[in-house]
């Protein structure tokens, strides 16, 4: 026992060394991506003029590839610079606009995530206990996911009205499926001996669900929730497009899209913020996952 028991007693940093190493790797990859990005522009982008880069470099790229032009692939400093620029004439800086839009979109995404998560769990739990229901309904559940969300979204807007609640429903539509599949799988994951043990205690189905099946399903469900977290942000952004809602990131993207020819960096800035929102949500769920599963061997081993 001693070896593994000691693992639990090590300092916070020692225990989380793999976690920090992972962050380091992500960071290095990010730097690498930025280097590649600017490298492409150096070798095959538009000419560098002293007034269009912070290093005041004049440079003539060796080739010209249109995909790497300033319009298609703006300089990183232009993108980051765009955060500080006004988002519209005499308006607040872009970063403030995007932050407000993020909060708005996150409200839709989070509501959709909760709604979809609950629906997914309830469906999965029903299916796990009623095989006939699973056989009958699963094809439709799968079918629901093959219909493009862009076809469903306008209908939901028409049915439920033009507000953020409808967008949350669209987001839920994208998030419930992974949770259903994983819940079903997870609730059925306990080995038969563990189930017989509960039977020998004359445990009710309900108690077996909460004391055995649900805890056993948690690793599966939490993995699905991580997928759903990012999907919910995508769902919210897409949901905003046909709904006419302009307060969120979807609205911002639509807006900056139409000005892309003159100000490409603003769209890129909006994309970065959307990605960050998804990543932050994902990390938040990962943190919850870590906290919920921290005493389980499997998790500590695989981290």
């Amino acid at each position, binding site marked *: 026992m001693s070896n593994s028991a000691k693992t639990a007693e090590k300092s916070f940093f020692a225990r989380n060394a793999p976690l920090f190493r992972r962050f380091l790797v992500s960071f290095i990859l990010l730097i690498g991506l930025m280097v590649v990005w600017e490298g492409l522009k150096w070798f095959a982008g538009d000419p560098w003029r002293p007034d269009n880069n912070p290093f005041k470099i004049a440079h003539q790229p060796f080739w010209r590839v249109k995909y790497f032009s300033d319009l298609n692939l703006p300089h990183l400093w232009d993108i980051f610079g765009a955060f500080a620029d006004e988002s519209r004439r005499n308006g607040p800086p872009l970063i403030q606009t995007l932050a407000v839009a993020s909060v708005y979109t996150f409200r839709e995404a989070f509501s959709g995530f909760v709604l979809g998560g609950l629906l997914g769990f309830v469906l999965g739990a029903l299916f796990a206990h009623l095989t006939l229901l699973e056989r009958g309904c699963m094809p439709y559940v799968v079918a629901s996911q093959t219909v493009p969300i862009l076809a469903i979204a306008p209908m939901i807007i028409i049915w439920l009205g033009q507000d953020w609640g409808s967008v949350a429903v669209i987001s839920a539509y994208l998030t419930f499926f992974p949770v259903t599949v994983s819940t079903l799988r997870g609730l059925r994951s306990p080995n038969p*001996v563990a189930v017989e043990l509960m039977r020998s205690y004359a445990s009710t189905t309900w108690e077996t669900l909460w*004391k055995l099946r649900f805890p056993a399903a948690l690793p599966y469900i939490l993995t699905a929730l991580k997928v759903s977290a990012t999907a919910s942000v995508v769902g919210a952004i897409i949901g905003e497009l046909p709904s006419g809602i302009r307060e969120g990131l979807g609205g911002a993207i639509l807006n900056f899209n139409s000005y892309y020819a003159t100000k490409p960096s603003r769209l890129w800035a909006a994309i970065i913020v959307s990605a960050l929102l998804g990543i932050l949500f994902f990390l938040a769920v990962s943190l919850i996952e870590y906290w919920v599963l921290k*005493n389980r061997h499997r998790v500590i081993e695989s981290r």
Partner: protein
Amino acid sequence: MPTPVASIQNVTKVFNPGKPNRVVALEDIHLEIQAGEFISLIGPSGCGKSTLLRLIGDLTSPSTGAILINGKSAQQARLDRDYGMVFQAATLYEWRNVLQNIELPLEIMKYPKEERIARAEKMLRLVELEKFGKLFPWQLSGGMQQRVSIARALAFEPKLLLMDEPFGALDEMTRERMQMEVQRIWRETGITIVFVTHGIPEAVFLSTRVVLLSPRPGRIAEVIPVDLPKERTDETREDPRFFEIANHLREKLREIERTQRN
């Protein structure tokens, strides 16, 4: 004669009846187990030891015949929580620490919190793991995990403890220590135990009676009373009578295997 703890009357168990893969796991089993006995079931693998144990514990039901536990049906006995069960795998819940694992049946049986804790701690002392209550299963050795699973099975004071090759996965040293432990618990609590094993010395060392099963179909070949002193110690393993019974069992088992091959 008092009511037997378990009365197995002309029990037959057929799996997949009427199908091509039909298996007669047990045929014409007759066995009475009295309170305080320690019964070992032994026999070649596939002879129906686990099936018999599972029939007693109402994890499966007989095709014909009847099983009475303390004068009730096996199902009623299960609903009355008369059974403690220990399997070859400890089957502890990884999300519960040792104490919480022992509390599991008590929670399901709606014991008040204070009593749950008091009982779990008492059981932990019984299996001599009082220092390990806050650890999680993965932090324990296989032998310790199995002791926790025994503590869990005894926490609600069942009348009958059913053990299916509980030490099958343990190394020889640990196994002998566990045998002493179960011996002591059996004497201290006065519980009735049905114990599946394929270790001959283990069966003789622990039991008051050994039930030898022969396979295809599973039948009781012989019931051997073990007339050794009730308290078994390390000297028991050197007792000439111990060897005598063990040798008799060994011969019988060989005989069964020989007739099986022919």
